[in-house]
């Protein structure tokens, strides 16, 4: 977490800075509200190409092809999208390719929408069963170091790695307020 001018920068700024530092030049996504700031930072960065996907598994295959061609990428998804990735995760797993996924978690802390709960609750188990190493950040201060260590593990040890950005971190969606 960086401190500038007495104001704490948003954790998404730390992730964006890490993308720059680790030469991650391709970011694919199925948007989530929790990723909004990071998506905007990446889209505004001329050094990063962003690709919007129709479903999350596309991003797993995209990351594999990009790595084969020498490009590091990150995949931004929501926990519900983890379920869409399961079979495609066999591609980086069987080929020993790195994969770096940032997952915003729904269906846990303060969730309003019960339909988010099943996939949100099973996200860590599904990832681990698919051969993905899972890290988790619950507070803004944890984000930078967690992302950095996860990214290093992905590229230097060629692992499939996911960082769960918890619902407590991103904030529970306020449907009642939106409805008023």
């Amino acid at each position, binding site marked *: 977490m960086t401190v500038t001018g007495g104001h704490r920068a948003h954790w998404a700024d730390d992730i964006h800075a890490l993308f720059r530092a680790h030469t991650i030049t391709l970011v694919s996504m199925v948007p989530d509200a929790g990723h909004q700031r990071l998506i905007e930072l990446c889209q505004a960065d001329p050094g990063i190409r962003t690709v919007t996907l129709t479903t999350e598994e596309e991003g797993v295959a995209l990351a594999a092809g990009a790595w084969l061609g*020498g490009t590091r990428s990150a995949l931004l998804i929501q926990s519900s999208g983890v379920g869409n990735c399961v079979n495609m995760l066999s591609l980086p797993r069987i080929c020993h390719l790195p994969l770096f996924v940032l997952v915003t978690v729904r269906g846990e802390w303060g969730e309003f929408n019960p339909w988010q709960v099943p996939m949100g609750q099973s996200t860590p188990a599904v990832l681990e069963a698919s051969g993905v190493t899972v890290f988790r950040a619950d507070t803004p201060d944890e984000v930078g170091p967690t992302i950095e260590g996860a990214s290093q593990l992905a590229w230097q040890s060629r692992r499939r790695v996911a960082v769960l950005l918890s619902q407590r971190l991103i904030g529970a969606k306020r449907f009642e307020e939106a409805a008023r």
Partner: protein
Amino acid sequence: MTVIDRREAVRRLLTEREGLVVVAGLGASAYDVAACGDTPLDFPLWGAMGGAAMVGLGLAIAQPSRAVLVVTGDGEMLMGLGSLATIAVERPANLRIVVLDNERFGETGNQATHTAFGTDLAGVAMACGIADVRTITAIDDVDRLRMDVHGAVGLLFAVIKVAADPEPRALPPRDGPYLAHRVRAELLGAAGALDD
């Protein structure tokens, strides 16, 4: 009209392929590419159904100065239809996608796919926004397609309607780390392939 033999079509497509990178969808498409002679620039899939076009997009983005060809079947393409919308938006000038459409799930007993009932993959690609879309029903038109696959026409999507008769299997290597490392070594050099 003579029905196109898929292996002959792929043989013509890959004639004098030089630096062309080829991603092959699982099953018969991968065998057709392997039957032309396995090379380090081939990345045949043995799974990851629905992912061939997106692997091609990733390679095309990472290697903008090289032509990347995805050769896949109708069943594999049907599983990744959304990727055609993604690719249409990205519009990578060096990506070519060729679907060998036999209207069958060939690996599982030749069951009919959706294209046997009228689903038009070229129409889907066009509706997604890919400008250069072709349907090929005569073998000699594959020679023209080959010129464009190797040329600088921009993003291209072609469906080649092929016979449903199964061909003898020509199996590419199936060791994943080997397949990945050799394509990286070819594209990035021996040292580059070992970099992070």
